């Protein structure tokens, strides 16, 4: 298929792999973190690890929106649906994230809560228009990629005077999470930088990682050849002792990003003081909330549902895995108690989660 096959070409992949193999110094290791779940998925689905030399190791980062949501945030959504009788609209990935009391949104739905799976914020608005007598809450999750559509929906709801629509805002920020990872002392030689997130925020916000932390960043698209090219570029930076922000994904990402989207987001949202992430703990200025003039659309205020922190399952290693300190297969319950059908931790839920990706695509590697 045009514009897809070109980025999945096996011959080109072999060429890049040969370059990586010949340029990576045998005497050292390269620990590269792909921040985004989209990259994790591409690496697993296309078997990219098989094309890399043993000393180039990919560490899966926390860039999977459902993976970083702490249990308490899902609990909040379930409480809204069960106790306040709202129609809760959510993206599909969130449905199966484990919450407290052995619940998930999917199980709450089976027990009678009105939870609806939607594809876009526009669908959520339509549900609100179609059900004027019901309260409709959109569970707004995701990094900078999904934030602008939420901002559009809030603005539209305000313009239409749609009083039965509100959002439970769990939008989070990529650079803040990267800071938290580096501050946590994880050994990383460089980052494969986000694809879709960067189309919105541009490459500029990553410059501190290169300048202040001395970590190379190469922004890459989500196709397998993008990822391989980015790995080669990172190996070259490490070899040269350079730490720069380079852009492999020039077909979609500029240094400034999508200014219109940024403006829209700034108009509707402001920074939260702190936000709790699964795996990273409470991170300052790492998430967004609605500005006061849009308070009427803030479900947390409208329904007075407070966030209550809930500790993760003790056996679950999601936290260490999200920080890149452990690999999925190093978790005791990986593949036994915790599987994609019965996820204990959030990394096992979305196909972009490190554990689900390894379970679904890569676990033959341990059988050898």
């Amino acid at each position, binding site marked *: 298929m045009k514009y897809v096959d070109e980025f999945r070409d096996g011959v080109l992949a072999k060429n890049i792999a040969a370059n990586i193999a010949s340029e990576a110094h045998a005497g050292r290791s390269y620990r590269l973190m792909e921040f985004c779940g989209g990259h994790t998925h591409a690496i697993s689905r296309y*078997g*990219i690890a098989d094309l890399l030399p043993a000393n180039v190791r990919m560490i899966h980062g926390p860039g999977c929106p459902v993976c970083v949501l702490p249990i308490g945030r899902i609990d909040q959504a379930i409480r809204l649906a069960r106790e306040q009788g709202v129609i809760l609209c959510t993206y599909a990935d969130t449905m199966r994230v484990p919450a407290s009391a052995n619940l998930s949104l999917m199980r709450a739905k089976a027990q009678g809560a009105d939870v609806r799976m939607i594809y876009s914020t526009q669908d959520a608005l339509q549900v609100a228009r179609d059900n004027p007598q019901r309260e409709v809450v959109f569970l707004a999750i995701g990094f900078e990629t999904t934030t602008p559509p939420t901002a559009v929906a809030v603005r539209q709801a305000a313009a239409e005077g749609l009083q039965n629509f509100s959002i439970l805002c769990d939008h989070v920020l990529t650079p803040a999470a990267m800071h938290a990872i580096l501050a946590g002392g994880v050994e990383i030689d460089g980052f494969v930088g986000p694809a879709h997130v960067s189309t919105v925020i541009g490459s500029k916000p990553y410059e501190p990682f290169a300048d202040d932390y001395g970590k190379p960043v190469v922004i890459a698209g989500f196709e397998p050849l993008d990822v391989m090219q980015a790995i080669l570029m990172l190996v070259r930076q490490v070899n040269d002792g350079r730490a720069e922000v380079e852009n492999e994904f020039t077909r979609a990402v500029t240094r400034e990003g999508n200014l219109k989207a940024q403006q829209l987001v700034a108009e509707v949202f402001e920074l939260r003081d702190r936000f709790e992430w699964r795996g990273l703990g409470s991170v300052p200025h790492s998430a967004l909330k609605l500005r006061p003039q849009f308070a009427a659309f803030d479900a947390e205020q409208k329904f007075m549902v407070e966030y209550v922190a809930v500790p993760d399952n003790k056996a679950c290693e999601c936290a260490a895995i999200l920080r890149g300190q452990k690999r999925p297969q190093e978790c005791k319950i990986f593949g036994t108690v915790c599987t994609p059908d019965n996820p204990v931790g959030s990394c096992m839920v979305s196909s972009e989660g490190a554990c689900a990706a390894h379970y679904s695509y890569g676990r033959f590697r341990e059988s050898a």
Partner: protein
Amino acid sequence: MSTVKPAYTRPLDFKHGRIDMSHGSGGRAMAQLITELFAAAFDNPYLAQGNDGALLPQAQGRLVMATDSHVVSPLFFAGGDIGCLSVHGTINDVAVMGATPLYLSASFILEEGFPLADLRRIVESMAQAARAAGVPIVTGDTKVVEQGKGDGVFITTTGVGVVPDGIHLSGDQTRPGDRILLSGTIGDHGMAILSQREGLTFSAPIVSDTAALHGLIAAMLDSGVQLRVLRDPTRGGLATTLNEIAGQSGVGMMLHETAIKVNQPVEAACEFLGLDPLYVANEGKLIAICAPEGADRLLAAMRAHPLGREAAIIGEVLADAHGFVQMTTRLGGRRVVDWLAGEQLPRIC
């Protein structure tokens, strides 16, 4: 001379009429629906017996029986509808056992208020599919549920067939070295349904592949190749069906991504919606696993049939205690092709 007037029943209004509760009552209205619609469309001597069950002639060979319920939404889609789908689905389940399908039953759960025009369209599509396949619908049942308790129409079909002596196809028969063949492109049915449901339009429409496969299967059996198992990869798609077989036989598999064909609009739609065609439902495709020495002959027999023109050898069976279905990716790497987790597309068939 008698003054009793001859019985008169106003014919069903197939233009504006709707199903009401009386059509499931067991009374006159139900009898009329059966006579004017089902019996007229499915018309065959077994159904015409008019009894509670169909009395069928003695059959030669071991019997195969399969049943399938159909709840697809939307009821009408590019390439078919719930009617022909319910005929094809059950014929295929019987045929992949190596059986010649002989008879079908059809059971309808209708929702009060369902337009008779739509019901007639569905029933006629079933009748046409059954006639084309040469498999009569010999008995049936109709129930009506109140509005809001169903979704238009649900159809359950059951099929009976006979397996000739010497043929034994089963999921537990495959062994290392066997070849895995696929009769054509994957994902067409599922994406036809989904693109219609989501109102997605592509330059070329996605058409369901719904089809009765017993003709293709007969040609494959005639080739004389030692077949281990046949299966139609419906819900859960190619990946899930191969995992079932690997589990039954206690083997692993290695697929080759470049050998698995996906129609371009299907690939585009999957790309767009974030779905993997390996997990998307098919309704007119089959997987065949055979001994390695017969693979080329089987492939030729499949390609000679209109429903197998794009058949390909897509992989081989391996010894693997873990039962992994794996794939060499087009990039040259390797990955597991796992069971489908959760629900990818509800109400696809």
